[in-house]
Every structure is written in structure tokens, then in C-alpha cells.
């Protein structure tokens, strides 16, 4: 029978099993089985896979976005630092200039004060000197008069002291000497 079916598909063996005529019960079972498969996979498995794929995409894109944000922030901070640095530099230069100007002013002040002071000291010294000279001259004159009178007394033996004091001889004499010296 099997042999007949193979060589004579139109024969009686083939009418029993025609391979291109579906067995409807099998279609039914196939439909139920495939339906169960579709239901479970399409409801419980593949949607979760979709979510997982999306989560992965999110994770990657989120990572990129985060990195970009961090980079932008870093860029901003860098430019901020640069601006601050430049500001600080100009500030420092300004301060240096000011300091230099201040120092110059102070130097001038100190110099002027010192000059003034020295002039003042010199002037005071001169004044003092002149005063001392005056008093020394006065003392010397007095002493010299006394000495001269004493000498004369000893030479003349007489008490000329009173007379000389009276007549101003000594003073006159000294004045003569002074004028002679001045000439």
C-alpha cells in the first residue's frame, strides 16, 4: 500500500492521506498552542524586553547627556577661573602701580622732611654756635680786661683798677684791637 501511494498518488492509498489537505483538528490544536505561546510571550516577555532595550538606550544616552553637562560645567568653571585670573592679574598690576606710586610719594615726603630736619638742625646749630661765640667773646673780653688790668697793676704797681674801670680804657683798647683785626 505504501509503495502504491508513492508511485501512484492518484491511487486509493493517496485518497486516505492527501498531504496538501489539512487535518482540521490539527489546525485547531495548532491554533490553541500557538495562541498560548503568543499570549504569554507577547504579554509577559517581549514587552519587558522592549522596556529593557529602552532602559539601556536611556542609560547610554543619559550617560552621554550627563557627560556633556559635566563637560559644559567644567568649561564654564574654566572660563570663570580664567576671567578671575585675568581680573586678579590686572588688580595685582594696579596694586603694584599704586604701591610704586605710594612708595615714591613716601620717599619724596621722607626726603623732604629729612631735608627740612637737617636744615632745621643746621640752622639751630648755627644759631647756637653764634650764641656761644657771643658769650665766649663776652667772657673773653671780660677776662682779658681783668687780666690786662691785673697785669698793668703789677707793672705799674699802682691800683689802676678803679681808674681803668672808670674810664673804660680796657674796653676802648679791645675795641681798637678788634677794629685793627677786622681791617
Amino acid at each position, binding site marked *: 500500500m505504501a509503495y502504491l501511494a508513492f508511485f501512484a*498518488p492518484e491511487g486509493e492509498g493517496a485518497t486516505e*492521506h492527501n498531504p496538501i489537505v489539512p487535518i482540521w483538528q*490539527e489546525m485547531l490544536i495548532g491554533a490553541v498552542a500557538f495562541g498560548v505561546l503568543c499570549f504569554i510571550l507577547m504579554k509577559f516577555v517581549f514587552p519587558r524586553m522592549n522596556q529593557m532595550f529602552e532602559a539601556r538606550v536611556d542609560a547610554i544616552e543619559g550617560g552621554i547627556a550627563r557627560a556633556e553637562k559635566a563637560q559644559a560645567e567644567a568649561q564654564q568653571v574654566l572660563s570663570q577661573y580664567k576671567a578671575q585670573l585675568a581680573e586678579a592679574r590686572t588688580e595685582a598690576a594696579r596694586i603694584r602701580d599704586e604701591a610704586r606710586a605710594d612708595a615714591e610719594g613716601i620717599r619724596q615726603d621722607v626726603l623732604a622732611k629729612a631735608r627740612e630736619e637737617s636744615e632745621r638742625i643746621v640752622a639751630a646749630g648755627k644759631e647756637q654756635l653764634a650764641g656761644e661765640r657771643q658769650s665766649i667773646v663776652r667772657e673773653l673780653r671780660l677776662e682779658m680786661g681783668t687780666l690786662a688790668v691785673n697785669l698793668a697793676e703789677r707793672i705799674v704797681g699802682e691800683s689802676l683798677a678803679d681808674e681803668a674801670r672808670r674810664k673804660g680804657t680796657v674796653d676802648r683798647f679791645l675795641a681798637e684791637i678788634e677794629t685793627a683785626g677786622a681791617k
Partner: protein
Amino acid sequence: MSSTALVLSSGDIPWPPSIDDFYLPDLTGGHGVLLTKFTAMVWLAVAIILVFFLVAYRNPKMVPSKAQWLAESIYGFNRDGIAKEIIGHDGLRFAPYLATLFCFIAVTNIFAIIPLLQISPNSHIAFPILLALITYVLYIYWGIKKHGFGHFMKMSLVPPNVPGWLLPLLILIEGLQNFILRPFTLSLRLFANMFAGHMMLLVFTLGGFVMLNANTLLFPVSLLSWALAIGLTLFEALICLLQAYVFVLLTSSYLQTSLAEEH
């Protein structure tokens, strides 16, 4: 007839392979059709796929384990490689169905070369017809839903820019192609591949035994026959996966035509 002699000499080996080899007694030994090797294999395929996916995706991680990676790869292949590629961005909503379809056909096909099973349920045309019917219904449903009945018919039947006198002929051809041949070719392609593949393996495997029984001197030829059977088994593995891919590819291609904006 020489073949008669072979049948007689082959003893208990059923020779030559026939259509009856595809209609085995049912599991209780009777001639029922509800509890046969074929229906059992369909349930087995469903069970294998479900267990695999449910276990692999029980606790999904951002960084996948091997099983999770495999499951995602299968889905991703259907989602990005077929649905997105053929249908476009609209196709993503069909990805779960297409992936399910692919897994079902691939597993039931590969039964053709699994020891002890060694036949694909798809060599019974009932299963390919069922799957082609679902594709057909989806194709027409989405076409009508997207474009409305009239517009979808016009899109499917009337090619643009043709002279009026050709229209009757073209409408006939397009209608035949889009509404009659499509489901038929889709189911027949899968069925015929699985049917012929099983037949070929039977011929070369049983043929080796038949020749050996007929004459011991034919042993080298038997060896050649078995070697060919092994080669064809590997080839069959390729066909099994390829046919699953082709079926899903054509399904998405039909869906693409029904979702397309215009011709």
C-alpha cells in the same frame, strides 16, 4: 518492476518512503488525530520556547546573562532585523508577534533533525496553513484599518500609471497575487520544504539499509548513502532556520504593503 523486488527484499524496512510515513498511528496506537506525535511536538515546541524565555527573562539585568543575551538577541533580530528593517518604525508594534512566529516555526522546523523526533510538525500542512492564515488576516486587517476598505482594495488591485485598457487584466492578476496566491505560497513553501526534507532524509537513510539488505556487496554504496544523509541533515538544519526567517520576512513584507502610504 525492480522496486517491487526491493520492497520484498527489504524485510521490515518500509520502502520506498511514502506519504503514509507522515501519518503515523496516534500515541495510543489508534488512528486519532488529536493526540499524535505531531500535536505532541507542537505542545513540546510551545513548552520549550516558553520555558526558555520565561527562565531567561525571569530576572532581566541591564548587563545581561548569557541566556538573557540569547533571548534578547532572538527578539532583537526580529525587532530590528526584520520588523524595523522591512516595515519601518511602524513595524515595532509587530515585533513581538513576528518574534513569536519566528521562534515557533524555527523550533518546530528544527524538530526535523532532532533525534527521536526527526520530523517537523510543519510537514503536516495544517500548521503552515494556520500560520499563513494568521498572516493573511493581519495583512488584510491592518490594510483596511489604515486605509479603509475601498482605498486598500484600490491600492492592492490597481497599480498606478497604467493605461485603462490594461486595468481589467491587471486587477485580475494583482487580486490573484495579493489575495489568493500569497497565503497559499506562504503555507506551501514552508510545508513543502519540511515535507521534502523529511522525504530526502528517509530516502538516504533507509536506502542505505535497503541496499545492504539486498546485497552485502552494496555496503560501500550504503556508506555513501548514509554519509549523504548526514550531510543532508546539516543542510536541513540550515533550511529549517532559513524557512522560519523567510516566513517571518514575508509576513512583515505583506504587512509593509498594507501599511505603506501609497504604491
